[in-house]
């Protein structure tokens, strides 16, 4: 296929096609989403592909496919693996027939995540192998290896790229596509697939029995390798290995770890040949702990004795600083430059015309002194508007709300959750809140799509991952089926309507659900929805600042007057808020 300049995730997707993948499932999550986004739009697809409703569902589907003898890929972000941890742990026991690769993308520095957990810990915990690429090319080349390794040992394989692999770009040498879509067939074998105690005890022993050969095989396959070059050594993994290679001083040995579990015997022999060893890796001290176990009296420098940080992501500058501190470099060649201080920050912000801004405005207006649990999606940015008090994980807005309500807080509890998040793991929380008689208001921020990760369709959209029409789920019927008596549908661009509904909900006891439905402003633009822009009549504007406090990036303020810039998408919410009617549609007097 030749060389191409590709995003890491595009290279990974291509490698899956080169591996003859047959079945693909996953749930979107930064930085993993583009793998399926690339696979689902290929014109001559020879594999099945779906966006699942959550990661547990995705993994169980993929596992079943791999049991049926077809190659399966399942993608998610690191925290998605928490949701899928239940099937992961026992899939190591049951094993697989055809290759199952679980891509769980880590996000050091939490660029777009709620924590900095390390997928390698799950590999250790579940005893499945884990591949940890150091570059885009290696990520690409590891995928076919991951499938064949999975088949050789009959185990799922975790594949753990990080943000700087997934969202980096580089020139990548690609291979030829291989047609997938073999027909799967499930061969019944209860001792393998029915994990009753009598069976699972045997399977556990089998899983442990695979480990020694697996450790050796990862060295033989070249994932873990070293060069002896001196009396001191650096052991590095993931993108840390790439930074070390750029900085490696002469006369220092180098070991690269690209796969786990590490063969301790092999590692011990390397360690013994050195007088001092520095370990460089992102996030958890996974490699360092193994090195320390075999080190004997060889001094080991790493996170545990303060030479490297447990948190954040590595960079050339950070690795050079560690090398300097550990005595491997005389001077850091990349002293961190001083950035200009006190510039106004430009954090991500809800788009001009975003439906959520109207919902948040109305919530704040009606429920002034309330607690606002929220969830994960674009609308977490409602934090800037003072309407997000909690966010911990997918689906945890309704549950946190009912917990606060039952804990006895006398204030109103109003929680917000997006449609995709509600379908991911929100429904159970609602069911539970109704069942146990919580007193909360739930606002489902329904923009018909999974927006933040790049507009992936979900069961609410009316379309599958591949663009095939599907019956859109009725959120209204779903909530009523959970036992909610008060369910109202409202357009969040209609501020008066939204306020009226919220005021009504405020009077009622029990669980109230308000579905605030409007298309995501980006999707709307893409499908050609055109609304006239608005402008400020500067003669009428009193400069009161009501529209400014609404926080829309299309509204600016200069010379004591508001002004609307060309980001305006015509949602008209600010026109409804202006106390003097100074915001008018363009072209109108």
């Amino acid at each position: 296929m030749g060389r191409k300049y590709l995003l890491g995730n595009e290279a990974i997707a291509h490698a899956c096609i080169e591996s003859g993948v047959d079945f693909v499932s996953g749930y979107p999550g930064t930085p993993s989403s583009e793998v399926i986004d690339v696979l689902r739009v290929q014109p001559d697809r020879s594999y099945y592909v779906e966006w699942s409703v959550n990661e547990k569902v995705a993994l169980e589907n993929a596992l079943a496919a791999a049991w049926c003898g077809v190659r399966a890929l399942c993608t998610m972000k690191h925290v998605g693996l928490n949701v899928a941890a239940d099937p992961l742990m026992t899939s190591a026991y049951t094993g697989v027939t055809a290759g199952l690769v679980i891509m769980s993308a880590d996000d050091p520095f939490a660029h777009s995540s709620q924590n900095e957990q390390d997928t390698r810990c799950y590999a250790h915990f579940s005893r499945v192998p884990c591949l940890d690429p150091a570059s885009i090319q290696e990520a690409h080349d590891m995928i076919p290896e991951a499938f064949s390794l999975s088949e050789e040992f009959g185990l799922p394989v975790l594949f753990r790229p990080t943000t700087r692999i997934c969202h980096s770009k580089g020139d990548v040498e690609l291979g030829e596509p291989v047609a997938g879509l073999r027909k799967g067939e499930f061969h019944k074998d209860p001792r393998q697939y029915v994990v009753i105690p009598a069976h699972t005890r045997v399977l556990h022993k089998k899983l442990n029995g695979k480990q020694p050969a697996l450790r050796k095989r990862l060295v033989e396959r070249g994932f873990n390798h070293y060069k002896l070059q001196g009396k001191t050594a650096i052991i590095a993994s993931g993108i840390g290995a790439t930074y070390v290679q750029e900085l490696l001083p002469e006369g220092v040995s180098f070991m690269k770890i690209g796969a786990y579990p590490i063969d301790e015997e092999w590692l011990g022999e390397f360690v013994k040949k050195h007088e001092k060893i520095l370990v460089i890796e992102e996030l958890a001290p996974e490699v360092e702990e193994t090195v320390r176990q075999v080190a004997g009296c060889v001094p080991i420098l790493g996170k545990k004795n303060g030479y490297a940080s447990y948190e954040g992501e590595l960079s050339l500058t950070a690795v050079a600083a560690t090398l300097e501190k550990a005595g491997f470099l005389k001077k850091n060649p990349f002293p961190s430059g001083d950035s200009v201080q006190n510039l106004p920050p430009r954090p991500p912000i809800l788009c001009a015309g975003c439906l959520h801004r109207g919902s948040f405005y109305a919530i704040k207006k009606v429920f002034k002194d309330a607690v606002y649990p929220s969830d994960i999606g674009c609308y977490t940015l409602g934090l800037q508007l003072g309407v997000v008090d909690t966010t911990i994980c997918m689906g945890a807005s309704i549950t946190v709300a009912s917990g606060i309500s039952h804990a006895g807080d006398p204030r109103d509890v109003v929680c917000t959750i997006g449609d995709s998040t509600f379908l991911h793991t929100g429904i159970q929380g609602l069911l539970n809140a109704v069942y146990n008689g919580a007193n909360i208001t739930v606002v489902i921020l329904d923009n018909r799509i999974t927006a933040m990760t790049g507009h992936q369709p979900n069961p609410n959209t009316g379309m599958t991952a591949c663009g095939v029409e599907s019956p859109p789920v009725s959120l209204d019927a779903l909530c009523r089926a959970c036992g909610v008596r008060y369910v109202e549908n409202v357009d969040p661009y209609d501020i008066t309507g939204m306020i009226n509904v919220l005021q009504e909900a405020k009077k009622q006891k029990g669980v109230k659900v308000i579905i605030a439905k409007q298309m995501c402003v980006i999707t709307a633009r893409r499908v050609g929805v055109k609304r006239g822009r608005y402008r400020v009549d500067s003669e009428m504007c009193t400069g009161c600042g009501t529209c400014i406090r609404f926080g829309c990036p299309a509204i600016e303020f200069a010379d004591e007057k508001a002004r609307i810039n060309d980001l305006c998408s015509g949602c008209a919410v600010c026109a409804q808020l202006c106390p003097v009617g100074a915001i008018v549609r363009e072209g109108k007097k």
Partner: protein
Amino acid sequence: MSGSFDILVVGIGGQGTILASNILGEACLIEGRQVKGAETHGMAQRGGSVESHIRIDGMFGPLIPPGNADLLISFDLLEALRYSHYLKNVGKIVVNRHLVLPTSVFTQNLPAPTQDEIIEELKRHTLCVFDADKMAEEAGSPLSQNVVMLGAASPSIPLKPESLIDAVKRLVPKKTININMKAFELGRKYGGTC
């Protein structure tokens, strides 16, 4: 050390920084040179400050260390200042004379530097500042602003103009090739003078 030529492209989410960096990457492929890059995706892209790193002849990591960039291409004055510490002392800035104040300035009443104050600060480096929006309109579409910027920066980039032009043709929508060609030429002509 890698010996790469390091370019940082910065702006505001939605301004087309990613297309600009893709064109640079494609031009490297055309010349058979190695290239590494990194960019902002996901939550950070929603109207926030965005950065794309491109390391021409890069063999190792995708991120440019602060103090190491040879060239800073910025679609906005404030963003140019925000990332100016990435430049080498001898580095060059090519920046659009355009300032979008962050919403935080209005909602939190934060002080913000003026256009002239920013330009004065940026003068510590070799500076090429011009109205790329106007030039893009002259080329036929305000959307070609990113290609205008690339054109203006191109005399400082160690890639042949033919490779960049080929890359632009490959990556922009077919219907807009002529507009983008003109955008590149206008930018390049101006860039040669500063």
